[in-house]
């Protein structure tokens, strides 16, 4: 997407402006088309999955004891007797208006459900990503500057462990040690019971993210409690993202450090830290942004296992539950939410490219 406005090769001053404006419009238009096609594709896939799974959505709602007559009435009410293409058309029409209907599992509008579960995931994923970036990039850079050294081996070992350890196990162990034995962090859930009351009853909902809402309300004791609860699951998820980011950083850096401009800089007598942390690092920022954005987006889908272990009421659990019970409205809403996350992060990384890469700005 970023490439579209670099196409502008016209350097005559007169039509330059017009061409730029045109390029802008073109890039926005192409963005809109991409968006539309992506979302339509997303919808089509979720719709098809919803029809292919061998689960009867009516049973999901009515349960085991329903009579045939009750099932038929529910089928009619849910629009399942309409032709498929018509059901799909309705599905798209509603989705475009952000009307995802009511979840059959929670009996509430899906958009409300998502507004409740997504902030929990957002909070967790954001802190985890901050963890991953703050630890992963320096680790990767250090490893790349001294390939084969003990520090490189250590980073590799930690990274490998991060890749290969089941997150479920890691989460449970973390809870056992840091919550069960040491008592350094809060337990499963987003808050202690007593704080949960205070949050539910006294703190106005602005974003649904507890850390932000309590900070806005100045409820610092709840804020602190929320922090003790989020730190462990965020660290566990952050570990994974760190493992990934450090590995990618290392390989990007190794590539850069073998370039001629690095040699030149060194020959010119530039201090080594500047060569590494400023010259080389700046050049790996572009691919690194993509890596970080992707890992962030993955976390934003919600991690079912982490959410289960930590009793964290997030998006991953919500979508999984919905899928298992053929709650199509919820699945559709959740999928669109995830799709939008990817699209937004894509856009965001485009903007960031321009920021760090002068070539993308011209």
């Amino acid at each position, binding site marked *: 997407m970023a490439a579209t406005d670099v196409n502008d090769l016209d350097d005559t001053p007169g039509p330059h402006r017009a061409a730029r404006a045109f390029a802008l419009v073109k890039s926005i238009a192409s963005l809109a088309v991409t968006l539309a096609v992506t979302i339509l594709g997303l919808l089509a896939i979720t719709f098809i999955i919803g029809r292919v799974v061998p689960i009867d959505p009516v049973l999901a709602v009515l349960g085991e004891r329903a009579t045939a007559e009750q099932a038929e009435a529910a089928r009619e009410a849910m629009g399942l007797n309409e032709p498929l293409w018509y059901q799909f058309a309705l599905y798209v029409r509603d989705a475009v208006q952000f009307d995802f209907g009511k979840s059959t599992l929670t009996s509430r509008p899906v958009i409300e459900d998502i507004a409740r579960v997504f902030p929990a995931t957002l909070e967790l994923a954001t802190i985890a990503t901050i963890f991953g970036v703050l630890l992963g990039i320096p680790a990767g850079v250090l490893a790349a500057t001294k390939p084969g050294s003990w520090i490189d081996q250590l980073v590799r070992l930690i990274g490998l462990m991060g890749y290969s350890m089941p997150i479920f196990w890691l989460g449970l162990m973390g809870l056992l040690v840091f*919550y069960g034995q040491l008592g350094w962090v809060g337990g499963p859930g987003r808050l202690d019971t*007593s704080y949960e009351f205070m949050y539910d009853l006294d703190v106005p909902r602005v974003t649904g993210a507890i850390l932000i809402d309590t900070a806005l309300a100045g409820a610092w004791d709840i804020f602190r409690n929320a922090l003790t609860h989020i730190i462990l699951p965020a660290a566990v998820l952050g570990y994974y993202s760190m493992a990934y980011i450090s590995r990618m950083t290392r390989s990007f850096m190794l590539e850069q450090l073998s370039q001629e401009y690095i040699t030149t800089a060194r020959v010119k007598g530039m201090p080594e830290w500047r060569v590494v942390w400023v010259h080389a690092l700046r050049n790996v920022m572009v691919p690194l942004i993509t890596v970080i954005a992707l890992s962030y987006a993955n976390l934003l889908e919600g991690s079912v296992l982490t959410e289960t272990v930590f009793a964290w009421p997030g998006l991953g659990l919500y979508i999984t539950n919905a899928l298992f019970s053929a709650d199509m409205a919820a699945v559709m809403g959740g999928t669109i939410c995830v799709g939008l996350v990817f699209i937004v992060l894509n856009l965001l990384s485009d903007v960031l490219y321009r920021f760090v890469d002068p070539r993308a700005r011209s």
Partner: protein
Amino acid sequence: MKFSKTASLLSAAALALAIGATAPAWADTPKDTLVVADKIDDIVSIDPAESFEFSGNDMLNNIYDTLVELDPSNLGPLVPGLATEWSLADDGVTYTFKIREGVTFHSGNPVTAEDAAFSLQRAVILNKTPSFILNQFGFTAENVAEKIKATGDMELTIVTDQPYAPSFFYNCLTAVVASIVDKKTVMENEADGDMGYEWLKTNTAGSGAYKLRVFKPSDSYVLERAGEYWRGDVPMKRVFVRHVAEPATQRLLLERGDIDVARKLTPVDIAGIADNDDLTVNDEVRGRLMYVAMNQKVEPLNDPKVIKAIKHLIDYEGMANSFLKGQYTVHQAFLPAGFLGASTETPYKFDVEGAKALLAEAGVEGMKIRIFVRNDQDRLEMAQSFQNTLGQAGIEAELRTGTGKEILGEYRARKHDIYLGAWGPDYPDPHTNADTFARNPDNSDEGKHTGILAWRNAWPATEVNDMTNAAVLEKDSDKRAEMYMEIQRLHQETSPFAPMFQKIEQVATRNGVENLSLGGSIHSVFYWPTTK
């Protein structure tokens, strides 16, 4: 008791010192609040006319009252509820209930006979899944206004279509679907003539000990004491039920004192906390049965000898004493222990040689069969054991697994061979299970009695149909109990069902939590008498 309290206080203090001020998570749960960890993601609707899941009924049992109630400290005999007295006229079909004076709903509106009539009519007219509990007395959307009506401010009259056993009718009135809702409040929230259905799916309007303060589906809910309760003191100001899906997580929370009650621990967790002096584990027998059923449309499962052989090929004791230890007890009759007339006979023993002989007599060789079972640890383990023991007699069994809804769909469509699953009673009367295990009104495919287990397995139930129909009309309770004993005996002998186990719920609590009744085999949890 005193010592252990002091000791735990001391150790808590010592630990608090060791950890310093960094651990606010150490705080106990609030004194006036009972904190429960459970799995609550099965709640679909919290309208009592629709709720039919374990967790939903657990919640609603504490928010709504019924005309006739059960005593949490002595489950079984019926006690007055919102009706103080009731009687049956000589015609055997006209019941009169006197409504309790001076009780108000959470809204402040008084409870009247009009509310009671409205609530029961509403459940019948809405015709949601649990409505059959009332509809089986001959009520329909068309006639219910005639059959159930207020015949005075505080007098309700109900006319059934047949002279049923009165105990049967009263027992059904204790079910959640017969909860009394606040007519005025509900009708204020009516939309398009839905009798408040859309609104009551996510709101409540009851007269029970608690009102619903916060409800976050699949996350948590908070019950708050509603004020004076007509049944007595309600010691806990709040009940906080949290959804914690992972048993190991529940255990950690309990050990740390962040919750008071953990309801979904595994046997491993229970064994793990056995030495913890701060915790108590209570066993409560629940109504759920695990059973095996053989589809009578499938050859040779319809051969009585094969049925018997298969009943002998289940390692009842072996399973109950190993991986099901503490969680299930062997039970081979279709009425769970705790029900009127429940039989505790266990005529079937694991006996490979006997089974082989029966199979040979039936002329069956090299039999191949599929066992339908959902993906759930207990069930899969049972199915694997069963698969193995079938194999010992030369029956090659394949497990057909899937999600609950998936397997259920095939079961209801009579597409299974052998089904291994669970059944929980719907209301505290023996007819609830007799009606499904021992009665089949029409065995044809067109009958579509998908809710009836005998139909799902294509078993015409000729041996017991008449007796089941008669038992539900028997006025003498002792005689009625005897009839059910006889039906269960015949059922064990002839039916393609092999009930195997009855559920034991092991609930772990912090010391000091008292009077918490989960509702036994017949009902849902009661929080109002609970103290801590």
